[in-house]
């Protein structure tokens, strides 16, 4: 009886896991479904009390609620609906060049907590020489409101209703603008249950017009005349960037979008009113139907007017630590990690051991995360930009992980013969009960978690990866502690243990069911591998994985010493083959287009060579670049890859000299400081010793060609 119930439970849990994985996959492959863009309908006035409604010149304003009543402990959406006349508009949070965002101040004599305004996707509205961001036609600005468990009844009226007041201000514009103010209020009954209100449909429609709840992280660089933004994971569509700050970019200018495989880069001319100082920026990417908010941090080491260290305040560090901690907690639930940890939890029997025994798992996790942090810091010091999961860019690592996950799945399925040594290793890794085994589980858990990212983690790690090394360590440790907490609590506390279901035959079934999320992870790893190495190499990897399973099976069945040796060799060979393939690149499909720079003959930057070339009356084009510099990438994609520029650079007596500042060095720093720059890109064209031109930081093919032409004439 008990066992069947637990079987059902475990089956349900594993199918939930598979479902969540499927959803994750689906959302990775398909973009958010297109939104309905139908306009909001004007509410029927007869359903309104007079105070709930106001009119101003060219606009009507309504105070709306999504549910009929306020239920203690639940939430409700409230909103202000703006209905301007045809051709008149209201504004987004950043109104653009002129105009003003609407404001809503809520007043209520109860501890209701009002969220921020959820702004629907705005439109860029050109007004003569300016551009405004806002809404033509009706739009509902809604907020989510949490209702406390306990409502102070003395503040309600005779009908048990609570009065909610909103002080609203707005600006409605065509070409001329008219500001307006109104104090709107309504009485909502407090009750134990509620139904959708007559206006709930307006709220539902508005929700389809909001940006995605998924917040992306991005980077930006500030150049002399533009701001360059970079966002990963955008499909190739006509995106438009809407900055939160109104003084950042020239709103009326064309935004240039450059798509490449790894990122989308957006170049927008800088606003005259931007002082060039920003460590972090928020913006919205919208294609009119769907949108994403982006949290951007400045690209460390890149060109900026002032090379200020990106120092985080103590409170910011604390917030990011909390985010990392929460991310670590949630990471426990990810499909790659949960099976291993559940087995571990199930296998816990006694809590009589010493403290070091109990904390061995925590130490394993801390050790592994600190190792990750150390590798990242070391790579950063050598000038590389790496992130969480950076090792996934290495096909050999992907192969090893695929075998590891297959092995874990086989262990979970009890497919390893009990007597075999592999089985012992496998099961003690996961369910052994010695300090060493706990430490190993901790390490293993971090390794299997490394391909996954949990909510909150991305932002915190994004900061960790661009900050001072000690902040990187602080954030990784916060993440580690969050990650280790659930299982460590089980180790430490009998009370927590008592919440676990009692052991029984159901555990076997549960364990078997957990093998499937593991297999799903293997499928994903194979897909990643295919992206790196091509379909042929992926086929080889799949065959090797099957051979690996077969040899393990044979190993369990062989009784003779020879058979064991042969089959062990088979296991090792099946792992070695795809690693060899990925290290040597055999079967790998070349990614087509060769890089612009590698095909262009260039001279490595060197002060002496430069001096010599100038003394020889040569034209020298100096390009100071770095692998991590977004603006440099944009220029290489746009200007230096054009045929005309390449032809111009290949002319006689034109020399193309490239300085690579990826691993910062003093010689280049000295050169940069001659031009009062703290970072790259820097482009200088010399006409021997006669003349020199410093090119803008954002190039077009024509800028380069004309500058070379000019230099040749100067000679």
């Amino acid at each position, binding site marked *: 009886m008990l066992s069947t119930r637990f079987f059902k439970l475990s089956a349900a849990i594993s199918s939930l896991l598979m479902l969540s994985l499927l959803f994750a996959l689906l959302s990775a492959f398909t973009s958010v479904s297109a939104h309905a863009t139908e306009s909001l309908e004007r509410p029927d006035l007869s359903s309104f009390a007079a105070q709930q409604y106001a009119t101003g010149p060219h606009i009507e304003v309504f105070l709306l609620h999504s549910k009929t009543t306020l239920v203690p402990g639940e939430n409700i959406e409230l909103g202000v609906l703006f209905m301007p006349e045809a051709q008149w508009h209201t504004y987004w949070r950043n109104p653009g*060049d*002129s105009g*003003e965002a609407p404001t809503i101040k809520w007043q209520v004599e109860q501890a209701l907590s009002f969220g921020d305004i959820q702004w629907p996707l705005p439109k860029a509205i050109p*007004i*003569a*020489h*300016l551009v405004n961001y806002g809404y033509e036609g009706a739009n509902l600005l809604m907020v989510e409101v949490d209702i406390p468990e306990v409502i102070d009844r003395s503040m309600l009226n005779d009908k048990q209703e609570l009065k909610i007041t909103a002080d609203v*201000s707005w*600006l409605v*514009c065509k*070409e*001329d*603008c*008219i*500001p307006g*103010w109104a104090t709107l209020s309504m009485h909502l009954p407090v009750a134990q249950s509620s139904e959708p209100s007559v206006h709930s449909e307006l709220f539902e429609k508005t929700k389809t017009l909001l940006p995605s709840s998924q917040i992306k992280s991005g980077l930006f660089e500030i150049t002399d005349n533009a701001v360059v933004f970079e966002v990963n994971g955008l499909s*190739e569509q006509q995106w438009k960037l809407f900055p939160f700050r*109104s*003084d950042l970019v*020239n709103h*009326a*200018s*064309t935004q*240039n*979008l*450059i*798509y*490449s*495989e*790894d990122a989308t880069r957006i170049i927008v*001319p800088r*606003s*005259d*009113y931007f*002082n060039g100082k920003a460590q972090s920026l928020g913006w919205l990417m919208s294609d009119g139907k769907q949108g994403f908010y982006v949290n951007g941090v400045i690209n460390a080491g890149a060109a900026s007017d002032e090379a200020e260290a990106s120092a985080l305040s103590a409170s910011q560090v604390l917030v990011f630590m909390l985010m990392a901690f929460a991310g670590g907690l949630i990471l426990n639930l990810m499909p790659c990690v949960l099976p291993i940890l559940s087995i571990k939890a199930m296998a816990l029997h006694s809590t009589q051991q010493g403290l070091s025994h109990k904390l061995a798992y925590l130490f394993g996790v801390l050790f592994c995360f600190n190792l990750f942090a150390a590798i990242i810091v070391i*790579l950063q010091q050598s000038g*590389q930009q*790496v992130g969480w999961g*950076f*090792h996934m*860019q*290495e*096909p050999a690592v992907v192969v090893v992980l695929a075998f590891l996950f297959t092995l874990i799945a086989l262990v979970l399925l009890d497919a390893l013969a009990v007597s075999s040594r592999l089985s012992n290793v496998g099961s003690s890794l996961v369910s052994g009960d010695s300090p060493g085994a706990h430490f190993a589980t901790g390490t293993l858990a971090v390794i299997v978690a490394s391909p996954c990212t949990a909510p909150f983690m991305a932002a915190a790690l994004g900061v960790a990866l661009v900050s001072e090394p000690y902040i990187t360590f602080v954030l990784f440790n916060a993440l580690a502690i969050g990650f280790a907490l659930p299982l460590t609590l089980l180790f430490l506390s009998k009370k927590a243990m008592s919440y676990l279901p009692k052991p029984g035959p159901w555990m076997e079934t549960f364990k078997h069911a957990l093998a499937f999320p593991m297999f799903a992870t293997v499928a994903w790893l194979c897909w990643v591998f295919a992206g*790196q190495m091509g379909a042929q190499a992926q086929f080889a990897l799949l065959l090797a994985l099957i051979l690996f399973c077969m040899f393990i099976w044979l190993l369990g069945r062989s009784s003779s010493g020879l058979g064991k040796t042969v089959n062990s060799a088979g296991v090792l060979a099946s792992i070695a083959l795809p690693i060899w393939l990925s*290290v040597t690149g055999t079967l790998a499909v070349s*990614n*087509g*287009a*060769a*890089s*612009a*720079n*590698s095909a262009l003959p260039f001279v490595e930057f060197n002060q002496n060579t430069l001096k010599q070339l100038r003394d020889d009356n040569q034209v020298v084009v100096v390009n100071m670049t770095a*692998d991590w510099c977004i603006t440099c990438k944009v220029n*290489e*994609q*746009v200007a230096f*890859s054009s045929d005309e520029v390449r032809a111009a650079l290949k002319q006689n007596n034109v020399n193309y000299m490239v300085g690579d500042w990826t691993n910062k060095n003093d010689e280049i720093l000295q050169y940069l400081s001659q031009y009062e720059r703290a970072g790259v890109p820097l482009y200088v064209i010399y006409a021997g010793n006669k003349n020199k031109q410093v090119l803008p930081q*954002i190039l*077009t093919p024509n800028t380069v060609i004309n500058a070379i032409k000019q230099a040749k004439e100067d000679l």
Partner: protein
Amino acid sequence: MSIRTSMKQSFKTLVGVLAFTLAASVSAKVEVDAPAPGFTLTNSMGESVSLSDFQGQYVILEWTNHLCPYVKKHYDSDNMQMLQRKYTEQDVVWLSIISSAEGKQGYVSADEANELTTSRNAVPTHVLFDTSGVVGKQYSAKTTPHMYIIDPAGELKYAGGIDSIKSANPADIPKADNYVDMGMSSLLSGGEVEKKLTPPYGCSIKYQS
């Protein structure tokens, strides 16, 4: 170092390059601490007035449109007139400039302009007409109000909003930092302007095109 190589590869593999054209910026760039663009305009008395007439004096430029709610905010509250009185008394030149094209909001005849000055108790040194919008665009003036301070050497010292709170509500005036007042007092006491460029706010200027 194959991590690095694979990163390089992914960086350099182009999927597509979309329309890349550097858009010429619509208007000239405002540059503080650089010479202010010179101009000659006709005032509401029909006389010709040039910026160069005021060499050796501080000059404040105010772009205006009497029908704009943001301009009304500062005139109905006497905030703008207060600034005009305070600084013209200290030998500062105050030029109110109207760049509204004929037929557009804020366009007025010379008589109407003089009548507005009287009825609003305003005391600008001159009210100037820039109906073609040439001077407004030279200064990259975007909104009404949009304020500029030029020093006795003819250098632009401030460009931007009148104060720090973007609203049409007169109740916000006492709460806001008045950038023109702060900048001007600092300059007159021999100091530097702390905020030289701020985003202007208000109605868009009703240029001819």
